Protein backbone atom coordinates (compact mmCIF):
# COMPACT_ATOMS: atom_id res chain seq x y z
CA UNK A 1 0.00 0.00 0.00
CA UNK A 2 1.17 3.52 -0.81
CA UNK A 3 2.07 5.45 2.32
CA UNK A 4 1.44 9.18 2.42
CA UNK A 5 3.37 11.28 4.89
CA UNK A 6 1.00 13.57 6.80
CA UNK A 7 2.88 16.49 8.42
CA UNK A 8 0.80 15.96 11.59
CA UNK A 9 0.43 12.16 11.79
CA UNK A 10 3.43 10.73 9.93
CA UNK A 11 3.28 7.94 7.34
CA UNK A 12 -0.27 6.68 6.90
CA UNK A 13 -2.06 4.46 4.37
CA UNK A 14 -3.23 6.07 1.18
CA UNK A 15 -6.92 5.21 1.73
CA UNK A 16 -7.12 7.72 4.58
CA UNK A 17 -6.42 10.60 2.19
CA UNK A 18 -8.18 12.58 -0.53
CA UNK A 19 -6.36 14.60 -3.15
CA UNK A 20 -7.48 18.20 -3.64
CA UNK A 21 -5.78 19.01 -6.91
CA UNK A 22 -2.91 21.32 -7.67
CA UNK A 23 -1.48 23.41 -4.80
CA UNK A 24 -0.32 27.01 -4.64
CA UNK A 25 -3.07 28.44 -6.83
CA UNK A 26 -3.84 31.90 -5.48
CA UNK A 27 -7.36 33.18 -5.99
CA UNK A 28 -7.28 36.60 -7.70
CA UNK A 29 -7.81 39.37 -5.16
CA UNK A 30 -10.49 41.02 -7.27
CA UNK A 31 -12.17 38.49 -9.56
CA UNK A 32 -14.58 41.12 -10.93
CA UNK A 33 -11.63 43.02 -12.41
CA UNK A 34 -10.59 40.04 -14.56
CA UNK A 35 -11.74 39.37 -18.09
CA UNK A 36 -13.34 36.03 -18.93
CA UNK A 37 -10.15 34.55 -20.25
CA UNK A 38 -8.11 35.33 -17.13
CA UNK A 39 -10.92 34.08 -14.87
CA UNK A 40 -11.24 30.86 -16.85
CA UNK A 41 -7.47 30.50 -16.63
CA UNK A 42 -7.70 30.66 -12.83
CA UNK A 43 -10.70 28.34 -12.58
CA UNK A 44 -9.94 25.60 -15.06
CA UNK A 45 -6.39 25.58 -16.33
CA UNK A 46 -3.84 23.55 -14.39
CA UNK A 47 -0.32 22.45 -15.05
CA UNK A 48 -0.07 18.77 -15.89
CA UNK A 49 3.60 18.01 -15.39
CA UNK A 50 5.36 14.75 -16.04
CA UNK A 51 7.41 14.62 -12.85
CA UNK A 52 7.19 16.52 -9.59
CA UNK A 53 3.77 18.01 -8.90
CA UNK A 54 2.70 20.06 -5.87
CA UNK A 55 -0.74 18.92 -4.70
CA UNK A 56 -3.16 19.62 -1.88
CA UNK A 57 -4.06 16.59 0.19
CA UNK A 58 -6.65 16.10 2.93
CA UNK A 59 -6.13 13.56 5.72
CA UNK A 60 -9.88 13.03 5.80
CA UNK A 61 -9.92 9.78 7.82
CA UNK A 62 -7.18 10.94 10.19
CA UNK A 63 -6.44 14.33 11.63
CA UNK A 64 -8.76 16.05 9.15
CA UNK A 65 -6.17 18.60 8.07
CA UNK A 66 -5.22 19.86 4.63
CA UNK A 67 -1.56 19.91 3.67
CA UNK A 68 0.59 20.15 0.56
CA UNK A 69 2.72 17.38 -0.87
CA UNK A 70 5.14 16.91 -3.73
CA UNK A 71 4.37 13.82 -5.76
CA UNK A 72 6.09 12.44 -8.80
CA UNK A 73 3.37 11.86 -11.37
CA UNK A 74 5.40 9.16 -13.09
CA UNK A 75 6.52 7.00 -10.16
CA UNK A 76 3.74 8.07 -7.73
CA UNK A 77 6.46 8.65 -5.11
CA UNK A 78 5.83 11.33 -2.51
CA UNK A 79 9.03 13.31 -2.04
CA UNK A 80 7.88 15.90 0.52
CA UNK A 81 4.87 17.00 2.50
CA UNK A 82 4.50 20.33 4.23
CA UNK A 83 1.81 22.28 6.03
CA UNK A 84 -0.47 24.84 4.40
CA UNK A 85 1.18 28.23 4.19
CA UNK A 86 4.69 26.84 3.97
CA UNK A 87 6.71 27.48 0.86
CA UNK A 88 7.19 24.71 -1.65
CA UNK A 89 10.41 22.95 -0.55
CA UNK A 90 11.85 22.87 -4.07
CA UNK A 91 10.71 26.44 -4.90
CA UNK A 92 12.43 27.77 -7.99
CA UNK A 93 12.73 24.34 -9.56
CA UNK A 94 9.08 23.95 -10.67
CA UNK A 95 8.42 22.73 -14.16
CA UNK A 96 11.57 20.72 -14.50
Amino acid at each position, binding site marked *: *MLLVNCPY*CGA*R*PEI*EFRCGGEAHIARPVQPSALDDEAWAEHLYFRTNPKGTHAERWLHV*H*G*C*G*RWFNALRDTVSDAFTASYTMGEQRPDAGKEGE
Partner: protein
Amino acid sequence: MRETLGVAWRDLVLPAKVPDLEVPTSIAAMGACARFSLRLPSAQARAVDQAGGFALSGGVNSAITSGGSISARLGPDEWLLIGPEEQGDALSQAIEVDLDGRFFSLVDVSHRNAAIAVAGREARAVLNAGIALDLDDAAFPPGSATRTLLGKAEIVLIRPGAECVYWVECWRSFAAYVHGFLMEAAREFGPHR
Protein backbone atom coordinates in the same frame (compact mmCIF):
# COMPACT_ATOMS: atom_id res chain seq x y z
CA MET B 1 -44.51 8.94 33.25
CA ARG B 2 -40.76 8.79 33.46
CA GLU B 3 -39.23 11.29 35.81
CA THR B 4 -36.34 11.94 33.45
CA LEU B 5 -38.61 13.46 30.82
CA GLY B 6 -36.57 15.90 28.79
CA VAL B 7 -33.30 14.04 29.26
CA ALA B 8 -32.09 12.55 26.02
CA TRP B 9 -32.10 8.78 26.18
CA ARG B 10 -31.08 6.16 23.69
CA ASP B 11 -30.79 2.44 24.07
CA LEU B 12 -27.43 0.89 23.30
CA VAL B 13 -27.14 -0.18 19.70
CA LEU B 14 -25.35 -3.40 20.75
CA PRO B 15 -25.77 -5.23 24.08
CA ALA B 16 -22.86 -4.35 26.37
CA LYS B 17 -20.43 -7.04 27.53
CA VAL B 18 -17.23 -7.17 29.53
CA PRO B 19 -14.09 -7.96 27.50
CA ASP B 20 -12.54 -11.35 28.25
CA LEU B 21 -8.73 -11.30 28.15
CA GLU B 22 -8.32 -15.09 28.46
CA VAL B 23 -9.61 -16.05 25.04
CA PRO B 24 -7.65 -15.35 21.81
CA THR B 25 -10.06 -12.63 20.85
CA SER B 26 -12.90 -11.03 22.72
CA ILE B 27 -15.15 -8.55 20.96
CA ALA B 28 -17.43 -6.82 23.41
CA ALA B 29 -19.67 -3.84 22.90
CA MET B 30 -19.07 -1.28 25.63
CA GLY B 31 -21.69 0.39 27.74
CA ALA B 32 -22.90 3.95 27.36
CA CYS B 33 -20.36 6.75 27.83
CA ALA B 34 -20.38 10.51 27.85
CA ARG B 35 -18.44 11.76 24.82
CA PHE B 36 -17.49 15.22 23.69
CA SER B 37 -15.88 16.52 20.57
CA LEU B 38 -13.66 19.44 21.53
CA ARG B 39 -12.12 21.80 19.02
CA LEU B 40 -9.56 24.19 20.42
CA PRO B 41 -6.56 25.88 18.74
CA SER B 42 -3.37 24.08 19.74
CA ALA B 43 -1.80 27.25 21.17
CA GLN B 44 -4.78 27.61 23.53
CA ALA B 45 -4.51 23.95 24.52
CA ARG B 46 -0.88 24.45 25.54
CA ALA B 47 -1.98 27.36 27.71
CA VAL B 48 -4.74 25.49 29.59
CA ASP B 49 -3.16 22.01 29.80
CA GLN B 50 -6.42 20.43 30.98
CA ALA B 51 -10.17 21.04 30.87
CA GLY B 52 -12.73 19.41 33.15
CA GLY B 53 -10.14 16.85 34.24
CA PHE B 54 -9.28 15.86 30.65
CA ALA B 55 -5.60 16.34 29.85
CA LEU B 56 -5.05 18.37 26.67
CA SER B 57 -1.25 18.19 26.85
CA GLY B 58 -0.76 15.02 24.77
CA GLY B 59 0.57 15.09 21.22
CA VAL B 60 -1.46 14.41 18.09
CA ASN B 61 -2.71 10.79 18.00
CA SER B 62 -2.19 10.21 21.72
CA ALA B 63 -4.67 9.17 24.39
CA ILE B 64 -4.32 10.11 28.04
CA THR B 65 -6.29 8.03 30.52
CA SER B 66 -7.10 9.25 33.99
CA GLY B 67 -9.58 7.46 36.21
CA GLY B 68 -12.53 6.46 34.06
CA SER B 69 -11.99 9.06 31.38
CA ILE B 70 -9.97 9.21 28.17
CA SER B 71 -8.74 12.26 26.33
CA ALA B 72 -7.86 11.30 22.75
CA ARG B 73 -6.20 13.91 20.57
CA LEU B 74 -7.25 13.18 16.98
CA GLY B 75 -5.69 16.22 15.32
CA PRO B 76 -3.77 19.38 16.13
CA ASP B 77 -6.98 21.09 17.28
CA GLU B 78 -9.40 18.21 17.88
CA TRP B 79 -10.03 15.98 20.88
CA LEU B 80 -12.47 13.18 21.60
CA LEU B 81 -13.20 13.21 25.33
CA ILE B 82 -14.79 10.11 26.86
CA GLY B 83 -16.06 9.91 30.42
CA PRO B 84 -18.57 8.06 32.61
CA GLU B 85 -22.10 8.40 31.30
CA GLU B 86 -23.62 9.68 34.54
CA GLN B 87 -21.14 12.55 34.72
CA GLY B 88 -21.96 13.91 31.26
CA ASP B 89 -23.55 17.20 32.28
CA ALA B 90 -21.05 17.81 35.06
CA LEU B 91 -18.13 17.17 32.70
CA SER B 92 -19.38 19.52 30.01
CA GLN B 93 -19.92 22.26 32.60
CA ALA B 94 -16.45 21.71 34.06
CA ILE B 95 -14.88 21.90 30.58
CA GLU B 96 -16.75 25.11 29.83
CA VAL B 97 -15.59 26.66 33.09
CA ASP B 98 -11.94 25.72 32.44
CA LEU B 99 -12.05 27.08 28.88
CA ASP B 100 -13.99 30.21 29.76
CA GLY B 101 -12.92 33.17 27.64
CA ARG B 102 -11.20 31.00 25.03
CA PHE B 103 -12.27 30.25 21.49
CA PHE B 104 -13.50 26.66 21.42
CA SER B 105 -16.32 24.38 20.35
CA LEU B 106 -17.65 21.61 22.58
CA VAL B 107 -20.24 19.22 21.16
CA ASP B 108 -21.86 16.38 23.09
CA VAL B 109 -21.52 13.32 20.83
CA SER B 110 -22.39 10.70 23.47
CA HIS B 111 -25.18 9.25 21.35
CA ARG B 112 -23.38 9.57 18.05
CA ASN B 113 -20.82 6.89 18.81
CA ALA B 114 -20.84 3.27 19.86
CA ALA B 115 -17.74 1.65 21.36
CA ILE B 116 -16.54 -1.90 20.86
CA ALA B 117 -13.61 -3.34 22.82
CA VAL B 118 -11.37 -5.75 20.95
CA ALA B 119 -9.18 -7.64 23.39
CA GLY B 120 -6.99 -10.73 23.61
CA ARG B 121 -3.66 -11.79 22.17
CA GLU B 122 -4.98 -11.92 18.60
CA ALA B 123 -6.70 -8.52 18.85
CA ARG B 124 -4.20 -6.90 16.53
CA ALA B 125 -4.68 -9.53 13.83
CA VAL B 126 -8.45 -9.13 14.05
CA LEU B 127 -8.23 -5.35 13.75
CA ASN B 128 -5.74 -5.55 10.91
CA ALA B 129 -8.31 -7.48 8.90
CA GLY B 130 -9.85 -4.09 8.24
CA ILE B 131 -7.34 -1.50 9.41
CA ALA B 132 -4.35 -0.66 7.23
CA LEU B 133 -2.34 0.87 10.08
CA ASP B 134 0.67 -0.76 11.70
CA LEU B 135 -0.58 -1.76 15.17
CA ASP B 136 2.72 -3.12 16.45
CA ASP B 137 3.79 -1.89 19.89
CA ALA B 138 6.49 0.23 18.27
CA ALA B 139 4.10 1.98 15.90
CA PHE B 140 0.94 2.08 18.03
CA PRO B 141 2.10 1.98 21.66
CA PRO B 142 -0.20 2.13 24.69
CA GLY B 143 -1.60 5.62 24.92
CA SER B 144 -2.22 5.92 21.18
CA ALA B 145 -5.43 7.03 19.52
CA THR B 146 -6.27 7.87 15.95
CA ARG B 147 -9.06 8.18 13.49
CA THR B 148 -8.75 5.65 10.68
CA LEU B 149 -10.77 3.28 8.51
CA LEU B 150 -11.95 -0.22 9.36
CA GLY B 151 -13.27 -1.78 6.18
CA LYS B 152 -15.61 0.85 4.82
CA ALA B 153 -16.35 2.54 8.13
CA GLU B 154 -14.54 5.45 9.71
CA ILE B 155 -13.56 4.66 13.28
CA VAL B 156 -11.52 6.06 16.13
CA LEU B 157 -9.06 3.49 17.44
CA ILE B 158 -7.86 3.97 21.01
CA ARG B 159 -5.37 1.90 22.97
CA PRO B 160 -5.79 3.21 26.51
CA GLY B 161 -3.43 0.92 28.41
CA ALA B 162 -0.56 -1.51 28.16
CA GLU B 163 -2.73 -4.61 27.90
CA CYS B 164 -3.93 -5.74 24.49
CA VAL B 165 -7.28 -3.96 24.61
CA TYR B 166 -8.32 -1.67 21.79
CA TRP B 167 -11.36 0.56 21.75
CA VAL B 168 -13.09 0.90 18.43
CA GLU B 169 -15.33 3.96 18.45
CA CYS B 170 -17.62 4.19 15.46
CA TRP B 171 -20.77 5.97 14.53
CA ARG B 172 -23.88 4.36 15.97
CA SER B 173 -25.30 3.62 12.53
CA PHE B 174 -22.03 1.88 11.57
CA ALA B 175 -21.95 -0.24 14.74
CA ALA B 176 -23.69 -3.28 13.31
CA TYR B 177 -21.35 -3.31 10.32
CA VAL B 178 -18.21 -2.79 12.43
CA HIS B 179 -19.24 -5.42 14.98
CA GLY B 180 -20.10 -7.91 12.25
CA PHE B 181 -16.82 -7.21 10.48
CA LEU B 182 -14.82 -7.84 13.67
CA MET B 183 -16.77 -10.99 14.56
CA GLU B 184 -16.14 -12.40 11.10
CA ALA B 185 -12.45 -11.56 11.27
CA ALA B 186 -12.22 -13.24 14.69
CA ARG B 187 -13.63 -16.54 13.39
CA GLU B 188 -10.13 -17.33 12.15
CA PHE B 189 -8.97 -17.60 15.75
CA GLY B 190 -11.57 -20.07 16.88
CA PRO B 191 -14.55 -19.74 19.16
CA HIS B 192 -14.67 -16.56 21.14
CA ARG B 193 -16.86 -14.97 23.69
